[in-house]
């Protein structure tokens, strides 16, 4: 297959010892033809598996970065808790952003020292922006785009940003209110976020301000220097996110980090954007969980520093990798300081700043599930169940690998899955039998009449008895057939006997070339295929489907790991043809208004052979399912 994406995904799978075993495990073979097995379970064909998706209108744009960490599967287990406190030490927050207001605490603080910043039009603007220095209000009142000027003049503030508030973006990834149907969602649908402002209106600040912010977030006393008593929050946050950094190690900052850790806080920090082999600081301090950034193709973003051997990786976006495609970034809450209004959609950024809050967010999910865990135990859940990348075991580039929310919550490396074998009538395409496979992968169909058959097998998830259905995410549901999914080999049964059919299964990948009816790949009703459109309007994928009996049938594309039309997923166009290649119907988008750029055809069909053609407007991945019913 000419898909770099799929090859990389395959390499990723192969690099993890635990997953490698799973890939090799589904050996499905026939023996003891005629042996009676357990009673047949009820199998239901459906469009998607049991992952939980939030109702936010812009979720499709977030699907790739949340899908990459298996968050939809994790949301089936935990969606957050209002009892878990996460501190965000950053550039401040907007309490008037409805997308996150419900998850913010009122005990934050503002540690930004008031400094004068030259304005391009003359005069100055304030780096604090609120008329003073330290105060109890962590609101970011302004955010300026900075413009370079000829040296020796320093950069000047050119104007208010139309898409700003770095701290709001970071906090939104951790915990924008979820499943409320508006805007975007956070990793946690419910959580308590303590905003601590330490960076100014330019995204920069003093080291001392950051140090004070760290201490305050950890519930430790802070001397403001104003002569009064120290200020102190009522409690320590369980998690602290630091999407900021410097190339220099500060002793004072390291001591603040040690003090925060002693207070029981897990510190999560961005590894930095210099494409260096070591994390910046504070990510580089001992005990701080350093987070490097990945793009949608599960490779280190070009700008990202390495995670360090004790670090971890998470989606941070890689806008430069896609020729300007903004869907390769991270979408979260932001603020338009020109219109003074909240925004959700004009807010796709990238950076290790965006990767760290994915980790901090999953840490909060873990605590929501198991509140008594210590910081070290949460860290162990994150790193110990990450998806290994690069060489086997931790390495300096990826640390422990790719954050995986589902794994960390379930303390396992992949969903549990049971194997099932399915027998198709090769002439009509009808499902003849579906039986569970034994623990060693063996199976048997009994009472089979003479004829020609295809043997398929699939893996369900967590015993839900669903096979042959697409399941967007890093793992997917394995599905395959004797002879290959695209070109199944018929098994001819002629009289009593044993007819062996042994094969392996994985995620079913199309077989090129399949651009025309003459080279079409097979697709069975009750099955699915993973495809790639290499070149839009040049490459097409054609599938041959046998409809076994008159009735309603549905053919539907879905994303491979995210949502159609975003990141590396194609925006598909689906056409149905009769046996002679005459077009019957087509569909472009399931729901254009709600950003569902997948395609779906549902119609009543007579028995016979049909062809499906998948085209794509962008090029990229897709999955195509054929099922009976709607």
């Amino acid at each position: 297959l000419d898909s770099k994406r799929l090859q990389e995904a395959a390499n990723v799978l192969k690099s993890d010892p635990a997953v490698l075993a799973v890939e090799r495990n589904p050996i499905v073979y026939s023996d003891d033809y005629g042996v009676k097995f357990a009673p047949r379970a009820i199998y239901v064909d459906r469009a998607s598996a049991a992952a939980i998706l939030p109702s936010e209108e812009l979720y499709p744009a977030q699907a790739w970065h949340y899908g990459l960490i298996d968050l939809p599967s994790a949301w089936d287990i935990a969606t957050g808790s209002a009892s878990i406190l996460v501190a965000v030490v950053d550039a401040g927050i907007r309490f008037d952003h409805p997308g996150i207001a419900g998850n913010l605490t009122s005990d934050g603080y503002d540690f930004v020292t008031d400094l004068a910043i030259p304005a391009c039009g003359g005069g100055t603007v304030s780096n604090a922006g609120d008329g003073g220095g330290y105060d109890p209000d962590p609101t970011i009142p302004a955010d300026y785009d900075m413009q370079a000027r000829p040296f020796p003049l320093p950069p000047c503030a050119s104007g208010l940003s139309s898409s700003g508030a770095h701290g709001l973006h970071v906090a939104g990834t951790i915990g924008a209110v979820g499943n409320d149907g508006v805007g975007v969602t956070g990793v946690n649908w419910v959580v308590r976020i303590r905003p601590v402002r330490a960076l100014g209106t330019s995204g920069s600040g003093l080291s001392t301000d950051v140090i004070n912010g760290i201490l305050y977030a950890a519930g430790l006393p802070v001397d403001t220097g104003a002569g009064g008593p120290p200020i102190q929050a009522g409690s320590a946050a369980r998690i602290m996110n630091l999407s900021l950094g410097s190339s220099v190690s500060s002793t004072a900052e390291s001591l603040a980090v040690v003090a925060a850790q002693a207070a029981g806080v897990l510190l999560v920090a961005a590894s930095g954007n210099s494409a260096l082999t070591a994390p910046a600081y504070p990510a580089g301090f001992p005990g701080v969980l350093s987070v490097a950034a990945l793009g949608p193709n599960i490779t280190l973003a070009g700008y990202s520093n390495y995670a360090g051997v004790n670090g971890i990786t998470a989606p941070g976006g890689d806008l430069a990798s896609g020729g300007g495609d903004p869907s390769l970034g991270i979408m979260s809450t932001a603020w338009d300081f020109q219109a003074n209004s909240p925004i959700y959609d004009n807010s796709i950024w990238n950076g290790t700043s965006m990767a760290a809050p994915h980790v901090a967010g999953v840490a909060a999910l873990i605590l929501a599930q198991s509140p008594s865990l210590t910081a070290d135990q949460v860290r162990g859940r994150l790193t110990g169940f990450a998806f290994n990348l690069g060489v086997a075991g931790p390495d300096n580039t990826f640390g422990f690998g790719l954050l995986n929310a589902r794994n960390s919550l379930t303390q396992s490396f992949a969903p549990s899955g049971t194997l099932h074998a399915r027998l198709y009538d090769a002439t009509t395409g009808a499902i003849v039998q579906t039986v569970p496979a034994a623990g060693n992968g063996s199976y048997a169909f009994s009472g089979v009449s003479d004829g020609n058959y295809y043997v398929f097998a699939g893996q369900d998830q967590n015993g839900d008895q669903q096979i042959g259905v697409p399941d967007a995410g890093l793992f997917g549901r394995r599905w395959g057939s004797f002879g290959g999914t695209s070109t199944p080999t018929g098994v001819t049964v002629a009289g009593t006997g044993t007819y062996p059919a042994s094969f392996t299964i994985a995620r079913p990948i199309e077989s090129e070339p399949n651009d025309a009816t003459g080279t079409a790949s097979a697709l069975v009703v009750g099955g699915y295929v993973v495809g790639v459109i290499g070149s839009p309007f040049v490459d097409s994928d054609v599938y041959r489907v046998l409809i076994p009996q008159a009735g309603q049938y549905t053919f539907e594309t879905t994303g491979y790991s995210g949502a159609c039309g975003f990141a590396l997923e194609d925006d598909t166009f689906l056409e149905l043809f009769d046996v002679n290649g005459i077009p019957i119907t087509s569909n472009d988008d399931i729901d254009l208004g709600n950003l569902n750029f997948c395609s779906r055809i549902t119609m009543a069909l007579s028995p016979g052979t049909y062809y499906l053609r998948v085209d794509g407007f962008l090029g990229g991945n897709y999955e195509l399912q054929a099922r009976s019913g709607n």
Partner: protein
Amino acid sequence: MTAWRRTSLPRALLVLLTGSLLSVGCPATRGPAPHRDETVADTTRLRELREAVEQQLGTPTCTDRSQCRAMPVGAKPCGGPSSYVVYSMATTDSVRLAAVVQEYTAYQADLNRKQELVSDCQFLSAPPVDCMAGACAARSGIPSRD
């Protein structure tokens, strides 16, 4: 055919040129202040490098979008460029420009280290560029996918 607009551009793409606030002359530093002579020397060197960049840039005249490019310049304390320069392949020697930009960026990164500066870790991405009124410039607005 689907006709929709990509949701948005990141903040970094909406500005022509950005810069690090915490550059030379900015008070937002941490750690001990650099020695005066060192500061003067740094400023002088940066001015020379900046002038070299501008000299290489020249006037970015163009006749077609394909001639326009954006090159990262400068360094944020947390990494990545602090801004981008837009130039024309038709009028600028990109190899020589890259050389002076690299020297400038390395020098600013060194200053970040010396002055122990800190910033957020949002990576500023290159602005989309276009040939407008005969000159290369950063393009505002949102690219469409029609």
